[in-house]
C-alpha cells in the first residue's frame, strides 16, 4: 500500500526527489571523494601526517601494504606511501581550484559579453574559442613551461584560460536562449538594473547548475593534467610528492615485482578523477534533467 501525504510547504529540492538512484549514487560517490580530498588536503596542510613523507628507511624498501607502521607500504626509498599520497594532494588542490576559478569567472564574463552585448564582441569571443580549440592543450602547457619555469601555478593559469571558451559558449548559449524569454523582458520592465538581471536572474538562477557541473569536470581535468605533467617530469619535482611523480618513480620497480608503489597513486588518481567526473555527470543528470524521462 502507498501513502500519499500533503506537504506542509512545497519541496524546495524537487529535482533531488525525482532523481534516478544511479545519479544519486554517482553524486554520493563524487561527494565522498570531494570530502576525502578536502580532508586530506587539510591534513597535509597542517602537517598531521602519520609519518614524515621525506624520511627514508633503507631497511624497508618497497614494502608491501599492511606492513606494521606503514598501512600502504613504502616506496623505493622506504618513504611512507600513505603520507606521501596525502601530501600529494597539495600538488593539485589549490592549483586546480585556481584553474577552475579562472575558467568559470573568465568564461562567464566572456559569455555574458558575447551573449548580452552581441555584435563584434561575440565574434571576438568566437575567434578566441577557435584559437584555443585549435591548439593542443598539452603542447601549449609545455610551451609555457619552457618559456617560464616548471611551476604548477603557471600551468594551471594556462589550463584555466584554455577552459574559458567552453564556459563562455555555455553561458552565451544560455543567455541567447533566455533573452527571448519574456521573464527577462519582464525583469527589465520591473525596473531591475541590467547587472541584477544578468548576475542574478541569468547567471545565478539559470546558469549556476551548469557552472557547478563544469567546475567539477574542470577539477577532474586539472588533476589529470597535473598528474600527467608530474609523471612526465615537468610538474612537481622530487622529493615533493605528487601522484604523478609517485607513479613515475614506482614504475622503475614495477617489473621487478614491486608493483604497489606505482599502483597505489595510480589507483588514487583513478578514484579521484572518476569521483569528480561522476559528480559532474550525476549533477548534470539531476539538475539539468539530462536523463530522458
Amino acid at each position, binding site marked *: 500500500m502507498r501513502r500519499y501525504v500533503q506537504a506542509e*510547504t*512545497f519541496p*524546495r529540492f524537487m529535482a533531488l526527489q525525482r532523481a534516478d538512484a544511479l545519479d544519486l549514487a554517482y553524486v554520493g560517490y563524487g561527494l565522498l571523494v570531494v570530502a576525502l580530498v578536502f580532508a586530506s588536503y587539510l591534513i597535509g596542510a597542517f602537517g598531521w601526517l602519520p609519518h614524515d613523507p621525506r624520511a627514508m628507511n633503507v631497511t624497508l624498501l618497497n614494502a608491501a601494504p599492511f606492513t606494521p607502521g606503514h598501512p600502504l607500504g613504502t616506496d623505493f626509498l622506504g618513504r611512507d606511501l600513505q603520507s606521501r599520497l596525502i601530501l600529494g594532494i597539495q600538488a593539485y588542490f589549490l592549483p586546480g581550484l585556481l584553474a577552475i576559478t579562472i575558467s568559470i569567472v573568465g568564461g562567464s564574463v566572456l559569455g555574458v559579453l558575447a551573449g548580452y552585448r552581441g555584435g563584434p564582441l561575440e565574434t571576438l569571443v568566437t575567434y578566441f574559442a577557435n584559437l584555443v580549440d585549435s591548439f593542443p592543450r598539452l603542447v601549449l602547457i609545455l610551451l609555457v613551461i619552457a618559456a617560464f619555469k616548471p611551476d604548477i601555478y603557471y600551468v594551471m593559469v594556462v589550463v584555466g584560460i584554455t577552459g574559458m571558451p567552453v564556459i563562455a559558449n555555455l553561458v552565451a548559449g544560455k543567455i541567447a536562449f533566455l533573452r527571448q524569454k*519574456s521573464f527577462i523582458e519582464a525583469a527589465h520592465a*520591473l525596473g531591475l538594473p541590467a547587472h541584477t538581471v544578468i548576475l542574478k536572474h541569468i547567471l545565478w538562477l*539559470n546558469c549556476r547548475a551548469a557552472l557547478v557541473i563544469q567546475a567539477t569536470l574542470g577539477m577532474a581535468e586539472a588533476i589529470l593534467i597535473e598528474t600527467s605533467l608530474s609523471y612526465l617530469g615537468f610538474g612537481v619535482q622530487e622529493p615533493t610528492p605528487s601522484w604523478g611523480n609517485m607513479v613515475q618513480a614506482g614504475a622503475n620497480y614495477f617489473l621487478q615485482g614491486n608493483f604497489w608503489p606505482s599502483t597505489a597513486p595510480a589507483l588514487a588518481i583513478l578514484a579521484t578523477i572518476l569521483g569528480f567526473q561522476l559528480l559532474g555527470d550525476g549533477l548534470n543528470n539531476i539538475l539539468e534533467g539530462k536523463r530522458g524521462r
Partner: protein
Amino acid sequence: MLLSIENLRTYFYSRSRRAFVRSVDGASLSVGRGETLGVVGESGSGKTVAALSAAGLVSGTPGVIGGRIEFNSRNLLDGLERYVQVEERDGRVMAVEKDESGWRRQVKRLMAGVRGKEIAMIFQNPRAALNPYSTVGAQLVEAIRLHTNIRNKQEAKEKALHWLERVRIDSPRLRFDNFPSGMSGGMCQRAMIAMALSAEPSLLIADEPTTGLDATIQARIVELLGELKAETGITTMLISHDISVIRRLSDRVAVMYAGTVVESGPASQVLQPKAGHPYTAALLASVPDAETIRTKSPLQAIEGEVPDTIDRPRGCRFYGRCNRVSDAVRSRCANLEPPLAEVAPGHKLRCWLHAA
C-alpha cells in the same frame, strides 16, 4: 493627464527587405489620472509597441525615432532629437540615423525610478514572464525590496504575503514557496499583478493580460483587475484585442489601426456600433454581443487584412477594407490621410466621413 503620447513613431528596420517596419506611426493617446484607457486593435496594429515605447523597453532597432511621451509632466523622450536624425521625403521616413548607445544611456537616465516604480507592466503569457528557477515569493520580495523602502527581508515577506492575498491567491503562505511551473496560468498572472502593484505605481500597463489563459480564467482576471481598480484607483492602460475585456474595464477607449490611433473617446461613445469610425464599427460587428446572440445574426468578419506596415498606402490606412466609403469622399480617402478631428468633446476620429 498622467500619460500623454503624441505623434509617436517607433520603427524597426527589416534587413531582408531593406525597409522600415512602421509599427507605430504617428500615434497619439493619453491617459488621465485614475482612469482606465482601453487600447484595442487587431494584432500588428502597434498597441504593444506603443506601450513598450512608453516604458522605454523597445529592444529592436532603430526603435523610437520621434514623438513625445509625457508622463507625470516629464518628457520621457527628452533629448531624443540629439540622438536621432530622420530623413524624410514627402512625408515618408527614408533614412534614420540613431546613436544607439547614447540613446540607451539617455533612456536609462530618464527611466531611472520610473520603470517598474512609476510605470509597472504586466504581460500576456504570465508563466513565461516569471523566472522559472526562482520561487514566486522570492521574485515578489525582490520587487518589493527594489521599489519600496522596505529593506528587511522578513518585512518584505509579510508585504509579499499581503499582496498575494490582495490578488486573491488561495493559501498565500503555501504559494509563496512555489515555483512558477507549479502554478496555473491564472495564478501566475495574479502573482505578476501582485508584483506590478507592490511598487504602488501610478500607471499600470496591462499588455494583453488575459491572452493565453482559459476563457473562465480570463473572466476571473478581468474581475480581479476591476476589483483592484476599484480598491486602489490606479491609472491603467489596458491593451487587448478582446473588445469584451475592454468594454468591461475601460473608462476611455483608443482604437489603434496600422500604427496609429483612429478613434479615441469615452468608452460609452466609442463602443456603440452605430456611429464612429468604420473600423471600430467593423470590429464591434465582428464579436458577438447580446443583440447578435438573441437574433442569431451572423458575425461579420473584416475583409482583407491589416495593411503592410512596410509599404503603407498613401491615403487613409483603412481605405482598402472600409465598407462605408462613399463616392463623395472616395478620392480623399484614397490619397490623403485624414486628420484626427474632434466630433464631440473628448471624442476624436480619424475619418474623412466625419471630418468637417
